[in-house]
């Protein structure tokens, strides 16, 4: 039964990937891609990566879909022009040959992977007690490979600055996105009043259990960002102007707290981002708490996009 399930899953995923490439209209391709993201969540469940499945469900199922649908609707009618630039058959055949070659090489690598598989799981299990965190993924993210996570938070911040840097000069410092209409009795306003309270509780819950069970700040922050976006989409709240000092302070607070904890480690435990014995868990929790609002704001604002109006509402 499990074989039939997996083979069916693989068939659906490959079919949707092909559809996302060959569909005539961008919108049809984007809807295919959203379905594809949903099915990837099932792949992660089947590969026993529940933490990854949570991330994919929140990002692939929610934010990416909204982002791409907005873009596809905005760019409707540009497909004909692009079609005229389609490369000739020679390039297409060459591209097909290259793609097949890459696929075959990767498939060969998959088939000759070493047995027994190399793994760091026993190492993690042996040292997890020192971090006092129950979820191995969290202890990797915030203790053994904390540097990656710090750099990731900074990359996210840079990506947001990149999005903002596309602002036309006259709107610099203004509010991102377009002003959304507000209809007090509309269905969207109804959903935006009912869903966020539940979503905020769920987001904080998933953040909170992350220390000991699958979950964590990325997944929780994504859910919170999605709820914020829903409120903005319904016109119940407006995006803050990007010149606001509190906004900018919150955006750098997470990475700065992370760096501060790293420096404490450099002084007290002998290496940047090393935790003094006995203080690992409180420090990890402090980083997670500081990163949570930063990540929520960055993920939400990245989706709203470039400022397109002044800072008057």
């Amino acid at each position, binding site marked *: 039964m499990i074989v039939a399930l*997996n083979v069916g899953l*693989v068939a659906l995923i*490959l079919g949707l*990937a*092909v559809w*996302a*490439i060959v569909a005539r209209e*961008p919108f049809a*391709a*984007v809807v295919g*891609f959203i379905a*594809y993201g949903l099915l*990837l969540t099932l*792949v992660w469940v089947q*590969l*026993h*990566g*529940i933490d990854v499945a949570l*991330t994919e469900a929140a*990002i692939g199922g929610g934010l990416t879909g909204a*982002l*791409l649908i907005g*873009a596809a609707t905005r*760019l409707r009618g540009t497909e004909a022009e*692009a*079609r005229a*630039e389609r*490369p000739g058959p020679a*390039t297409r055949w060459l*591209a*097909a040959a290259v*793609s097949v070659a*890459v*696929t075959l090489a*990767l*498939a060969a690598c*998959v088939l000759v992977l070493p047995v027994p*598989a190399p*793994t*760091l*799981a*026993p190492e993690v*299990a042996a040292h997890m007690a020192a971090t006092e965190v129950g979820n191995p*993924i969290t*202890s990797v993210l915030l203790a053994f*490979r904390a540097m*990656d*996570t710090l750099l*990731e938070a900074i*990359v*996210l911040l840079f*990506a947001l600055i*990149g999005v903002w840097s*596309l602002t036309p000069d006259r709107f610099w410092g203004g509010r991102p996105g377009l002003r959304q209409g507000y209809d007090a009795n509309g269905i969207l306003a109804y959903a935006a009043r009912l869903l966020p309270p539940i979503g905020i509780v769920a987001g904080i819950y998933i953040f909170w259990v992350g220390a000991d069970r699958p979950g*964590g700040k*990325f997944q929780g922050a994504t859910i919170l960002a999605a709820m914020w976006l829903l409120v903005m989409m319904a016109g119940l709240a407006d995006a803050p102007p990007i010149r606001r000092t509190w906004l900018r302070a919150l955006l750098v607070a997470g990475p700065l707290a992370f760096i501060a904890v790293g420096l404490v480690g450099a002084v007290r435990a002998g290496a940047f981002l090393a935790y003094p014995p006995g203080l690992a868990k409180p420090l990890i929790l402090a980083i997670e708490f500081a990163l949570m609002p930063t990540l929520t704001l*960055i993920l939400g604002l*990245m989706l709203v*996009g*470039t400022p397109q109006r002044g800072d008057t509402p």
Partner: protein
Amino acid sequence: MNVPTLFGLCAAALVGIGLYGLIVDPHPLRKILAFNVVGSGVFVLFGAIARRGAAAGMGGDPVPQALLITGIVVAFSATALAVALLKRLSDEAGSVTLSSDAPARAKSDAGHD
């Protein structure tokens, strides 16, 4: 065939499919989609390898799984930046062509910004 091998082969195919679209399709939004297909192929390959490393009572090797979470979030931020660039290009040039010798329509009103 066991589960990690099946999904590993699926991942190899995804990388190939995405790569073909990335090269052949001239529309920038389609290139972003294709790039995400390549990316997810790499992620699934990573996940399959992590699953092979199941040991010590864990369902998979936690180190690649943690890197996957980082990767998915960074891939999203790259997509958001690419979409923002694309929207700006469309506002500015009135078209979304990436070709260098395309007619520069509506160039004149680009100077106001």
